[in-house]
């Protein structure tokens, strides 16, 4: 079998950033504290900005720097701040460290293995689509596909609203990753519009978290099962 050819440094860097983002997604899967999940979300969002800067530098697209700054301001600063305040308000006596450990439906090791299966599925599906191009690293795109599925998995295996919200936000990160890799030349206004979609999601999820917490006195969605007809 022929040795695999090394991609260029730019493509390698993009792929590495994508791979680290996927690893952070897995980190969220096994994290037991909502606070730490928010922290991981911040790291993941920061990496998206770094990737935007790398692409901007490589392909000479100055408006991507603006996008990187906007995305960092929104996802690294604003969204985590909102989430933290929400969680602090819902936390009972010890306002810090809302534990969502009990919300795991699978043990962490099993969840990671299930995540690997999901990631493999997403990875090879995107690989089979065969989107190739000089400016689109196929691996980073496939990793974005895997991330979408793992984020869905995170929302499924967790039974609390906070993790589900973070799963949804990181899903948005995955989609931004795919967008950056495939269509980095998109006009800035469109990219920004996508970014502000996230704000809608934040509003919806914060309403959901607060309503659920005032009704059920907890973040767990397990009580909702008895509403089945």
């Amino acid at each position, binding site marked *: *079998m*022929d*040795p*695999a*050819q*090394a*991609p*260029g*440094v730019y*493509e*390698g*860097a993009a*792929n*590495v950033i*994508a*791979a680290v983002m*996927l*690893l952070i997604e*897995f980190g969220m899967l*096994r994290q037991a504290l909502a606070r730490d999940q928010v922290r991981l979300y911040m790291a993941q969002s920061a990496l998206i900005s770094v990737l935007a800067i790398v692409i901007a530098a490589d392909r000479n697209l100055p408006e991507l720097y603006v996008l990187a700054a906007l995305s960092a301001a929104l996802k690294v600063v604003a969204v985590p701040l909102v989430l933290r305040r929400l969680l602090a308000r819902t936390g009972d006596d010890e306002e810090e460290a809302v534990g969502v450990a009990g919300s795991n439906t699978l043990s*962490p*090791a099993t969840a*990671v*293995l299930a*995540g*690997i299966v999901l*990631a*493999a599925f997403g*990875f*090879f599906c995107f*690989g089979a689509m065969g989107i190739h191009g000089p400016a689109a*690293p*196929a*691996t*980073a795109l*496939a*990793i974005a596909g*895997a991330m979408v599925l793992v984020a869905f998995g995170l929302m499924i295996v967790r039974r609390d609203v906070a993790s589900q919200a973070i799963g949804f936000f990181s899903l948005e990160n995955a989609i931004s990753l795919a967008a950056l890799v495939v269509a980095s030349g998109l006009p800035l206004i469109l990219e920004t519009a996508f970014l502000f979609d996230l704000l809608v999601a934040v509003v919806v999820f914060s309403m959901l978290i607060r309503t659920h917490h005032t009704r059920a006195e907890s973040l767990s969605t397990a009580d909702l099962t008895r509403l089945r007809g």
Partner: protein
Amino acid sequence: MSAAIPIPVIQLLQVLTIAIGAPGITGVIAKVEARLQGRRGPRIRQPYYDLAKLFRKEALAPDGASWFFLAAPLIAVAAYLTIPLLIPVLTSYGLPLGYMGDILGGGFLLSLASFVVATAALETGSPYAQLGSSRAKTFSAITEPVVLFVVFTVALLTGTDLPYALAATVRSSAGQIIRPAHLLAAAALFMVILHETGRIPVETHTGTYEFGMIEEARSFEHSGPFFALLKWGSELKQLILYTILADVFLAPWGLASSQRAGAVVLAIAALLAKATAVGCVVAVIDNSFAKLRLFKITEFVAGAFLLAVLGVFTLYLGGG
């Protein structure tokens, strides 16, 4: 110009460097760890004194133990001393015996050594030694897939699974270093090394708390020279694994590319420096994390498995 050293002598030097350097690296790690904790710590030469003391002591075997109990440490050390022939320790070009076995061959030798030690521990009838060997075998069964996936990554990267080939590939260009497959495989290997050398977060390296012990507990019943061989063996294993990590994956620079004496001496110094650097990182990890509960070790290994599997995935689309 310095004189050329004959090839067989270089091959012997590879083994001697590992054999003599190994206790020193353990001493350095113990010293760094103590300094990080604000203690003065033992001398760096302390492991050598320990070995010398143990070699002078009387050897005892428990009642009913067969010859295998005493043969196991010898077999283990022999296996460990064979591995430096197979991996790039000092030279960037393959030595004649270097093609005797590939990475899997080295892996088999490591497993053989750990198997005979575990079997000897089982023979003693001592509950702690048996506990240790049973745990060691359980956890090595779950780290094995990680190692296999790391080997797959190497095979996909180079088209062969010779350690020399991977080192040469890594040296060839910057693109080879920054590709995710290589970084993920190296990270997975590092986690396996933490596991195999019995470091935090898997096992406390120092201390006498038997219930947390995995590898350490296996040598409880050995004494005198045989205990010394076991201790030396685990130090050898540590330096061998560090050498694989540094000379094959992370930093295959500083190896001798010719037979000149100067280059070879420089390579010895470079190897020890690299192993010390890896050891310092390990010491920092030792001091910054808590030991995992026994049943949490599977999560640690699942993390390493994730890295290794992702490494293989990224290669399949050609880009990684």
